């Protein structure tokens, strides 16, 4: 199911959406173009076999090495990686989708990278996307209610970014 034939069927349904894949990984994954993620998810949910009717988790991983010595050695460029874990209740199988995003939109610090929201596909994505927005700083276009969920509404910064620095104080409370 996760083999090359599955990859081809996505490619056939959404031409140009698949930009990479790693089928030999521990959890085989497929990389999707950022603008196409909602469309691919909608197709995965509506197809007959297997129907990915449930979303387990949305994660953002910040790939940024803050130590300049180590940064010179790493093989990747700084970026954000979105990981979608899908689950099919009838087929009892999972699927991993990944999307690469720039850390900041247009490389301007503070401008959040944007990705289409999958709230319209699975309702559970609502809170998961709010959490990713809150902690990792990704803006979801088309999200009905994009605001912070775990941090206070007036919190500054995105704590799960690797270059995040804890503020000295918050409303008179010492933070560090």
């Amino acid at each position, binding site marked *: 199911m996760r083999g090359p034939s599955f990859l081809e069927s996505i490619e056939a349904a959404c031409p140009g959406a698949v930009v990479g894949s790693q089928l030999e990984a521990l959890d085989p994954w497929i990389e999707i173009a950022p603008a196409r993620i909602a469309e691919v998810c909608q197709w995965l949910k509506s197809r007959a076999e297997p129907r990915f009717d449930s979303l*387990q988790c949305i994660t953002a991983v910040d790939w940024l090495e803050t130590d300049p010595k180590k940064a010179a050695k790493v093989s990747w460029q700084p970026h954000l990686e979105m*990981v979608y874990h899908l689950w099919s209740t009838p087929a009892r199988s999972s699927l991993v989708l990944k999307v690469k995003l720039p850390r900041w939109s247009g490389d301007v610090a503070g401008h959040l990278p944007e990705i289409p929201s999958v709230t319209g596909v*699975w309702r559970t994505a609502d809170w998961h996307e709010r959490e990713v927005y809150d902690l990792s700083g990704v803006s979801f276009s088309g999200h009905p209610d994009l605001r912070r969920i*775990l*941090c206070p509404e007036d919190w500054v910064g995105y704590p*799960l970014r690797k270059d995040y620095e804890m503020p000295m104080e918050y409303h008179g409370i010492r933070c560090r």
Partner: protein
Amino acid sequence: MPDLIEDDPRIIEFDVRTDEMLVNMGPQHPSTHGVLRLVLRTDGEIVSETEPHIGYLHRCAEKIGENLTPRQWIPYTDRLDYLAAMNMNLGWALTVEKLMRHEVGEKARHLRVLIAELNRISSHLVGMGAYGLDLGTFSPFLYAFRERERILDLFEEACGARLTYSYITVGGATADLPPGWLQRCEAFLDQFEPIIKEYHALLTTNAIFVKRTAGIGVLSRAMAIDYGCSGPVLRGSGVDQDLRRDGESLYTGMYDGYAFEVAVQKEGRYPRDHSYPTVPSEAVLGDCWHRFFVRMLEVVQSMDLVRQAIDRYAACPEPLPEPLKLFEKLPVGDAYLETEAPKGQMGFYVVGNGTSIPWRVRARSSSFSNLSVTHELCRGCLIADVPAIVGSLDIVMGEIDR
């Protein structure tokens, strides 16, 4: 009818029009199970909108995980679902083992089943007792805590802690069970088994309890899946899914050879319903009563599993393997694994980059998704039913806010 003038005292009778009002429930409200704040938009007694506000218990667990080795993060997993800390330890340990392609031996496998199922019983006991409190009856809470205390005693003997165990760890468990522990565990089960009847008399078949829960907060099958609900909430809606049977082979392998039936209603019948109270006629599949009942069935199911695990564990002569080193290097790559914790599917995601400290740690909790469905369930219900609905989801704020 004569015309009414403003000073007429009878005007009050005609002025019972209610206004829309915002009611703040929590974060200190006792029936919100911790620090959850619900903002209710009400019209009289009817709730038209519910907005949960979470994050009061946010402790940056994921960020802390990026600065510790997996074994050092085990105590932090205790504090996710602190009522089922063993299951949290297990979920994280298995995820890291998956990434490292490490397999624990037979003895550790049976020990894990034994401990995890025992913790499931204690978690469901709290769920049951606290649910009684939500609905205004105090005694079931005392009954539940009486038995839970004995499980905590057993855990204390095994690992020294009563709530935050850090017992199951990457590569096995921190220590083997002390001598005589299995006999004491069996003695507890023998004593516990007949007591379950009391719970059913106190709550399951109690006329007031049935009136308060049957037909309240009905969660349809499709909505449960769409909102990513899991565990007893999902099974209470009639979805036949239990990761102990349907999950990844790495996890189901742990339960290989164990006999158990998933607690879900199939063709109008629950497994074991021959020896159990019958489903009341008012109950609708997916309502608060069914969610509660699934938990009660799982208590018995877990008891069976514990008995099976005791025999298998005792039959393993080899010593328990040493857990992995504290600073064991993680391979490059990522792994995601969901396990069936008492409250639902607990997922952990770990990204390794060749050092002993993970690059990214993610905990996806079941209560987080289960709570997100409240606004759908509470639409149009009475204010008094809000605690009944939220309580039936059996949430723990520790794993929602992380």
